[in-house]
């Protein structure tokens, strides 16, 4: 019995392959090869283990110590409890229930807020002076919560752990008891410190944190424009230059939040401002 198969004709097979090559060089449109990335290769995957979370908390504690070395902690129990009340309410809706968020006030007139991996968040006394209601405070704290839930610092300093870094994974920073591991740990703390006080986060990370904070405001029951109103005030009063150059232009951020609110039908949606409580707890100081 003789085999019947059209592809056994070499000429047809050749035509088939030439057609493939022709198609290859004819299509000129460009597509990123990101679609090849499997779920196990996505960026946040390497940071999900229990060891990584522990390491992140230890790392954040160390970075917080550095922050407090720059600005002292404001020793005001009532105000600190209030900030924690607002911050923890916001963090209830954050994407990382495994993290216990802690909030503190930095005794400086600089207008800024900081977050360290592992749930450590600080807002400056200068920033509090500019805030006019609790929704604005919640918006600022929500922005810092988002930096932690999205692991912006963690990803940036350990971005190449699976590529170029001599160590594999964030946890090994802590687990390694060798001198070289300690050197690497200190180096990475330096990098994180540089992000907070000199370089700033990546623009897309800042914009992402703004939109997440806006969502958190809405889900927590606050006025969802809290962060937006605060940023507008900063812009109107010309305080952009006072933010240590660590944030992208206010204009871009304001526009991005407005677009996000419009797209998600948050514009004009009513929510709690809690102005009185804010004045009672914070402004009275």
């Amino acid at each position, binding site marked *: 019995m003789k085999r019947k198969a059209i592809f056994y004709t070499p000429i047809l097979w050749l035509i088939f392959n030439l057609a493939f090559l022709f198609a290859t060089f004819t299509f000129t449109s460009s597509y990123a090869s990101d*679609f090849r990335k499997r779920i196990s290769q996505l960026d946040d995957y390497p940071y999900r283990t229990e060891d990584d979370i522990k390491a992140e908390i230890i790392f954040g504690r160390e970075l917080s110590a550095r922050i407090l070395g720059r600005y002292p902690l404001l020793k005001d129990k009532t105000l600190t409890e209030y900030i924690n009340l607002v911050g923890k309410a916001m963090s209830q809706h954050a994407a990382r229930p495994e993290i216990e968020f802690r909030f503190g006030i930095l005794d400086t007139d600089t207008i800024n807020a900081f977050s360290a991996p592992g749930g450590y968040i600080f807002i400056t006394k200068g920033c509090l002076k500019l805030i006019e209601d609790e929704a604005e405070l919640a918006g600022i704290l929500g922005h810092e919560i988002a930096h932690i839930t999205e692991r912006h610092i963690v990803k940036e300093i350990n971005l190449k752990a699976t590529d170029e870094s001599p160590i594999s994974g964030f946890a090994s920073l802590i687990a390694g008891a060798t001198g070289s591991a300690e050197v690497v740990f200190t180096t990475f703390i330096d990098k994180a410190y540089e992000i907070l006080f000199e370089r700033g986060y990546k623009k897309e990370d800042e914009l992402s944190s703004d939109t997440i904070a806006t969502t958190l405001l809405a889900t927590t029951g606050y006025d969802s424009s809290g962060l937006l109103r605060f940023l507008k005030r900063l812009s109107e009063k010309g305080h952009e230059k006072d933010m240590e150059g660590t944030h992208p232009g206010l204009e871009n951020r304001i526009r991005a939040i407005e677009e996000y609110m419009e797209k998600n039908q948050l514009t004009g949606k009513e929510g709690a401002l809690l102005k009185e409580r804010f004045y009672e707890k914070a402004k009275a100081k």
Partner: protein
Amino acid sequence: MKKQRLNNLLFFTIISIMIQPSVLLADEYHYINSLPGERAAGMGGAYIAVSDDPSGCFYNPAGIALASARRLSISVNAYNISTKTYKDALHKTTGEGEDWELRSSRLIPNFFGVIQRFGPGIIGFSYAVTDFTSRDQEQVFRDIRSAIPGVNIDRYVINIDDVDNAYNFGPSYAIKLGDNLSVGATLYFYHRDSKIIRNHLINLSNGEFNWENYYLSLKEYGLRPIIGLMFSPVDKISLGFTISRTFLFDSDLRAQATIRGPASFGYGLNDVKFEVRESSEKRSFPLETKFGVAYFPSPSFLLSGDLYYYTRVENYEPVLNGAIGAEYYLSPSIAMRFGLFTDRANTPYLKRDRINQPEHVDNYGTTLSITYFTRNSSLTLGAIYTYGTGEAQVISNSPAIQEVRIDSITVFVGGGYSF
């Protein structure tokens, strides 16, 4: 290597019941005798348009240009057992048919590969075992018919000791020519080391005996270039194309036969025939062109399909094979893979009233694997099942045709590490 040439070298057979030493190579009638690579194996080898890890060095070197990290990969066929059954190859004196089985079992590392960035592209080095067989069996048949009128075979003892491995190892290099196009090449050094030892002892019912011993060894050295292309015409779709061929630059075949036939065939008491034959004739390999398409609808799901075409070479027919594969992530830590593939024979269908024809068995396989991912590593456990049916002539110089069935199960483990 032509089957006929082997037959000429081997068969001094004086009793037609003598089973052929089959073929010298593990499976020269099929082109897909191994599925290297932990991920590719689970997907039935449908990997031409995926190939974005070290096993791409073997399947499509253009794919390694798209790898996301330096990576080391190894796969091991933890256990392979295959059985080839020739139905009613022998007949008992009662007329009842008796099957003859060839069994192979083997544990072998069949792939190792590593890739990393080098200059504008990705460099790789890999080792792939494309053929592996190890048969070590002893068989005894009793009360078998012989071709000698009035004489039966009281006892027929067959001892088999076969080893056949085909190794490919060498460097690869791939480069992206744009966001959606990459090219790559692999240059494998090819080495085949094959050995067959067969011992046949036949005790005839008239008190005479026949003893035959064969020793054959084949060593081949060559180069196997693979040129690959990977292209993404639209988002989430990848096309792959490769062309390759093995070129031998050295071949050394040695065969020894030692025979002590029965007196009725003219053998004296101490009359033992001994013959040695050698050949350096280099066999030809087909040109292999392979085409694949892969669809990546989400980070959790992947579908791929391949077509492979092998050209006609010497007495072998052209062959078209295909494979399809799927990958699905149950969670970011666990992926399941499934595949189907064909492995059709490169021989023609057997014709009636002819003798010593090569067997024709078309194989079909299915694969299944599960992979567990940790931060930088992966561990895979999988299985490959191959089933084939066809026809053969295992009795030398006899027009009898036997049905053949092949069953093969391979359990494989694999691992990968990104660094």
